[in-house]
Structures are given as structure tokens and as C-alpha cells.
């Protein structure tokens, strides 16, 4: 189980990035993925960005199943 998590994170991030690249927009992307086992532990996440508010943005998706949580964040910076 633990060995596959590595692969899952890589896959999620790579597929997200390739699909974003396929959009063909003039943006730089940063994709982050956190996968955590459900074990009663708490997690806090914060992000602070120094950019141009009118052209750059971010998006976060939280997903879970019976045994784990997955949080994916995408930051897009305009060129």
C-alpha cells in the first residue's frame, strides 16, 4: 500500500499537468498533490501568493475515499 502511494501522487500530478498543457493557454502551471492516510490525524494547509490578481489564479480540489484523503492544488501564472 505504501509503495503505491508514490506512484499515485506522481500519476495524479503528471496527468493534471499534461491535461492543463493541452489547454494551450499561455500560462505557467504549478500542480501540488497531497495524499494522506485516514488515521485521525489533522492537517492544515495555507498558501500565500505574490502575483497579479487580475491575470493569475489558483484552484483546489479535495477528494476522499474510505482510506485516504487527496488534496490537489493548481496555481496558474499568466505569461
Amino acid at each position, binding site marked *: 500500500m505504501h509503495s503505491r502511494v508514490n506512484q499515485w501522487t506522481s500519476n495524479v500530478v503528471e496527468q493534471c499537468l499534461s491535461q492543463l498543457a493541452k489547454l494551450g493557454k499561455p500560462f505557467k502551471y504549478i500542480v501540488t*498533490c497531497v495524499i494522506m492516510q485516514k*488515521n485521525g490525524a489533522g492537517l492544515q494547509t495555507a498558501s500565500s501568493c505574490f502575483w497579479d490578481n487580475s491575470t493569475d489564479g489558483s484552484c483546489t480540489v479535495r477528494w476522499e*475515499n474510505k482510506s485516504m484523503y487527496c488534496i490537489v492544488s493548481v496555481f496558474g501564472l499568466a505569461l
Partner: protein
Amino acid sequence: MSDVAKDKAARLLKKRGSVSSLSSHEVKAKETIGKTKDSMSTVSYIDEPGQQDDNPRPAVQMENTYQLGPAKRFPVATVNNILKDVLTSYLQEEKYEAELCRQMTKTICEVIKARVKDLMIPRYKIIVLINIGQLNEQNMRIGSRCLWDPTNDTFSSYTFKNTSLFAVANVYAAYFE
């Protein structure tokens, strides 16, 4: 199952992108919850994607600088030290508590951003990402991938651990052409 959820999230994202392109420069936070079998996905939209093609940017006329690369590069080692300093000073003796760590995460984030900005590196956009979690015999994997120009853009990362919590800080710097 996870693919279905991801596809749904991706479709929701695309749909929302095209609907909100009519209104500009608004900050919206939207959430929808889609349920599929025994997995749940929530999509939150912090900001809208920029509209590169349709509306022109407001009035600022930019001249050519004829610069091919950044004048001053991003100092990864300095930023590493900043991250180490800030995380150890704020979290050395702390125990994980939900409310305290919630405030702590936001504070540390702002502090790191302010210190990186103080370095005065021109034309770089900065993204600071902090994860603080409880150590509870669980396993966790954090990964990130970036689509950018590797000659000019870089990142810096530091992990701090004490007996009851761990903290991961990532700083991404992208050159603004």
C-alpha cells in the same frame, strides 16, 4: 471510481471557467459537492483564470526591455535558510492543536512571503505553500509538478518535524516575462 470523480471535477472546472469569463476581475469562492458512490469531491474556485485572448489588459503600455533572462536570479539557498529559520522559530516547541495550527499556518505563510519579498528579486512571482500536520502513525505523500521554464523558474522546500507535528514549506518562484 477515482477517475470518474476526477473527470467530473475537471468538467466542472472547465464549465465554470467558461461561464465566468463574462464577468471580469471578481474574486469568487464557489463550492460544489459531487457524490459518486463512496468518494466525495469538492471543488473550490478561489480566483478566475485570466482572460488572455478576449479583453485587452487595462491601459498599461509596456515597452520592450530586450531582456532575455532575469537580471537577478532567485537565490534558492537563501530562501532555504529563510524557510528553516521561520519554521524552527515558530514551531520548535509547539504541540499539534487544530485551532492553534490553523492560525499558525496562515501566519507562517504570510511571514515567509514577506521575507522573500524583502529579498527584492525583480520580476518574480512567488507562491508559498505550507502544510502543517499531526504525526499520528500515518503515512503521507506530498508531490508537485510544474510546467514552466526551468532555466529561470525554481522552487525551494523545507520540512520540519518535532515530536507531535510536521510542517512542509514550499516556495515556487516563476519569472514574469
